């Protein structure tokens, strides 16, 4: 009897567990008060001031012509949708669809376009005046004023998760539409834009009323409203009919709403991206693996969009005192021995571009002429000459190459190992996970050669700063070289007055000659989409903005 009871009890427990686990888990945003109708929102009152940067955009697509739904694959769950917390892979993918910012830049190093800020100007030494639109409303009907802007920035600054906000001394509201911003030092190119485009703007009232600080149910002023968030699985957005910005000239790139419903689907396994596209589970996927790409390249049902990645894969030499790689000829010999074109073909055929500096044409200020100038193109004979000139003999040197433990880095490391073997340099590869890599890459005893990825902000000096700025790394470059001239050239090129073609080129020629780090290649990010997606639009972090993409008239209808 007892046994029967136990069997029945266990069976029921298992059944209940199964049923409870299988129930659809949905967190829906709280009921919100009715938002003001589009017609109620006050009209734009002022003409753009001289300092404004009106965006050249088209009027939003007519409602009737809009596709019903688009689904996009993202590689990770954002987990926390709150506005002022740090970045993660999942958050980066959806933040620009959720929140609005003061401004946006339409491409890396490109023009700043208004979003919530209507205009911005420098009014004094390190002081700026920002004027916002007077008709900004969030989806709950809260009027976003200058006080909300100042509160958003101050809250984010206090939390310390949004790095560029560390440059702010104070920010305060002057009246309903004017904000005064004081910063620590005069900005270089792109510095102000970085600060103005970093902090999501939300209503203080709505944020403080939220039980979890917008972690799962954000209320924002953007053109889309989050209607369903299934943590770890999907996010659904619906186009707002009452979006505050009704003036077509200010419906900038990221304020477009070219589709009625957007669904982000979390796909954590890379191989599943191709399957999700083929089975119609998603319409756009950025994470299709190199092996799967061939299936989509000549398939009329799909379109591939090829974008150059912001990261430059580079080889950094250990410049600590007494290290053999402080010898310039040796560094140059190594660069000549590496065939970056062959490396591209081997690692990512058709999705890779050899570099000509640390950086690529995505960055503002990049000079096209560098591509026709010599940059250590593969030449084994020359490499051997320089190697001999460095005073070393084949078989004498063994270097430890530190790299991250992803597949591409592994392949690149093996190619470098093989090619330096031709020169007579033995290479021991040490691949470690990213957290360990980040920890030990600033330890001069951890490596001789470092396989690194450098990105940075909008302009070409930004990835250079990441490697070479000696103010960041206790008086040396990130790879332990000391060079006052390099630092002086870098300071010049990254200043507002010094950022010009001549100075950019002067820095490039100097770094090329010294070769403390060798820019090898940039990968391309290939986005595969249903053939009904006519144009894929990405933000400066390389994330797809589905509302701004363009769709065929019959897409998903």
């Amino acid at each position, binding site marked *: 009897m007892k*046994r029967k009871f*136990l069997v029945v009890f266990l069976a029921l427990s*298992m059944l209940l567990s199964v049923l409870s686990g*299988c129930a659809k888990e949905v967190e829906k945003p709280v009921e919100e008060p009715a938002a003001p109708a589009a017609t109620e929102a006050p009209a734009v009152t002022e003409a753009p001031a001289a300092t404004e940067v009106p965006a050249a955009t088209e009027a939003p697509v007519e409602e009737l012509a809009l596709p019903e739904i688009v689904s996009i694959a993202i590689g990770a769950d954002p*987990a926390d949708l709150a506005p002022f917390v740090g970045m993660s892979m999942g958050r980066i993918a959806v933040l620009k669809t959720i929140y609005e910012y003061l401004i946006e830049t339409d491409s890396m190093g490109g023009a700043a376009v208004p979003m919530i800020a209507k205009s911005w100007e420098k009014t004094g030494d390190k002081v700026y005046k920002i004027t916002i639109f007077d008709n900004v409303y969030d989806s709950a009907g809260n009027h976003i004023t200058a006080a909300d802007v100042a509160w958003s920035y101050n809250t984010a600054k206090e939390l310390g998760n949004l*790095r560029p906000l560390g440059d702010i001394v104070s920010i305060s509201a002057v009246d309903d539409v004017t904000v005064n911003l004081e910063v620590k030092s005069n900005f270089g190119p792109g510095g102000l834009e970085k600060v103005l485009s970093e902090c999501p703007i939300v209503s203080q009232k709505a944020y403080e009323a939220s039980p979890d600080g917008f972690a799962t149910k954000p209320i924002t002023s953007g053109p889309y409203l989050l209607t369903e968030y299934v943590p770890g699985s999907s996010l659904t957005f619906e186009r707002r009919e009452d979006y505050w910005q009704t003036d077509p000239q200010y419906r900038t790139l990221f304020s477009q709403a070219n589709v009625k419903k957007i669904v982000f689907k*979390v796909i954590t396994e890379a191989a599943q991206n191709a399957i999700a596209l083929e*089975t119609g589970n998603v319409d756009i996927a950025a994470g299709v693996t190199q092996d799967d790409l061939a299936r989509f390249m000549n398939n009329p049902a799909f379109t591939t969009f090829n974008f150059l990645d912001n990261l430059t894969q580079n080889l950094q030499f250990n410049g600590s005192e007494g290290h053999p790689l402080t010898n310039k000829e040796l560094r140059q010999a190594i660069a000549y021995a590496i065939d970056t074109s062959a490396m591209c073909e081997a690692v990512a055929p058709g999705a890779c571009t050899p570099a000509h500096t640390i950086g690529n044409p995505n960055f503002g200020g990049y000079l096209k002429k560098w591509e026709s100038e010599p940059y250590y193109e593969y030449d084994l004979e020359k490499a051997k000459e320089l190697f001999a000139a460095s005073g070393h003999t084949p078989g004498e040197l063994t270097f430890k190459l530190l790299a991250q433990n992803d597949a591409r880095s592994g392949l690149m490391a093996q190619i470098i190992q093989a090619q330096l073997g031709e020169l007579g340099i033995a290479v021991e590869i040490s691949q470690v996970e990213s*957290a360990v890599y980040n920890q*030990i890459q600033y330890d001069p005893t951890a490596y001789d050669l470092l396989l690194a990825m450098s990105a940075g902000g909008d302009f070409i000096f930004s990835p250079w700063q990441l490697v070479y700025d000696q103010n960041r790394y206790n008086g040396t470059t990130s790879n332990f070289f000391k060079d006052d001239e390099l630092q002086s050239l870098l300071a010049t090129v990254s200043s507002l007055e010094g950022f010009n073609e001549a100075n950019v080129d002067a820095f490039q020629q100097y770094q090329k000659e010294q070769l403390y780090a060798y820019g090898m290649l940039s990968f391309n990010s290939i986005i595969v989409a249903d053939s009904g997606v006519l144009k894929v639009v990405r933000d400066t972090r390389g994330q797809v903005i589905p509302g701004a993409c363009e769709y065929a008239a019959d897409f998903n209808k």
Partner: protein
Amino acid sequence: MGRYILKRLIWMIPVVLGVTILVFSIMYLIPGDPAKMMLSPEATPEEIAAKREELGLNEPYLVRLGKFLGGIVFRFDFGDSWVYNQPVTKELLNRFPRTLTIAVICIGLQIIIGIPLGIIAAVNQNGLGDRISMFIALFGISLPNFWIALMLILFFSVKLGWLPPFGIDGFKYYILPCIANAFPGIATQARQTRSSMLEVIRSDYITTARAKGMSELQILLKHALPNALLPVITIIGNGMGMLLAGTVVIESIFSIPGIGMYLVGGINSRDYNIVQSSVIFLALAFTFIMLLVDLAYAFIDPRIKAQFARKHKRGHHA
């Protein structure tokens, strides 16, 4: 029996405490700075130092361990995730039903398929049934579950379009992950059942039962199977524990946000609270399951039940 359960429950405390201290110490010692991971590569050394201070990473080992243990013991609070800025307890409870669902269905499949396969193999030792059953078992144990998962997706989702390839929108989303995850366990179960059954059906009491004229089916179900089940139950218990902690591959392939995925994400981002809490949570679940297994022993095996009864009587006489 009540005293035994209480004793086992009390024994869970040092086990979980040991796991807590061990996992905390491992996370303390491994390289990787959470502050650096959280901030952008452009962060200055001052900003990294400030973040470390904010996260309490500069405090001594014992202070950090004390705070962590205090939170768990007094408030059942595992702290907040540094990366996601959310309470870890809430997230674990959100995710646990998904992982448990997969584990329970897998165990169910292993019992329903693995045990009959083992019985068929044992009663047909060296015959066709044995060979077929053991071939299936060998097949299941040799193929990695991620490969089976991808093959199932290609066939049932891409080719036939019957089942979704990923997601958690309903029961049908769990079919492929559970089948893929159950395969190796089915094989183990079949082999263990076969081995136990072979041992039992050679026993004297089975010969006696035959001599008394009982049918083979009766002998099998009434005498052989119950006695052969004891080691099988151990395997089921262990398998359940392994499934709870080891579904990460299947969760990753099918994009199922369970505890395994949460744990791996925490390890990659050095989110100590996620890692420590997930491991402790799984340790708790595992020890609880092992307790249930031991109790199941007592119900199934009369010898163990009698042992409890004798101890109880002795206690009363004393």
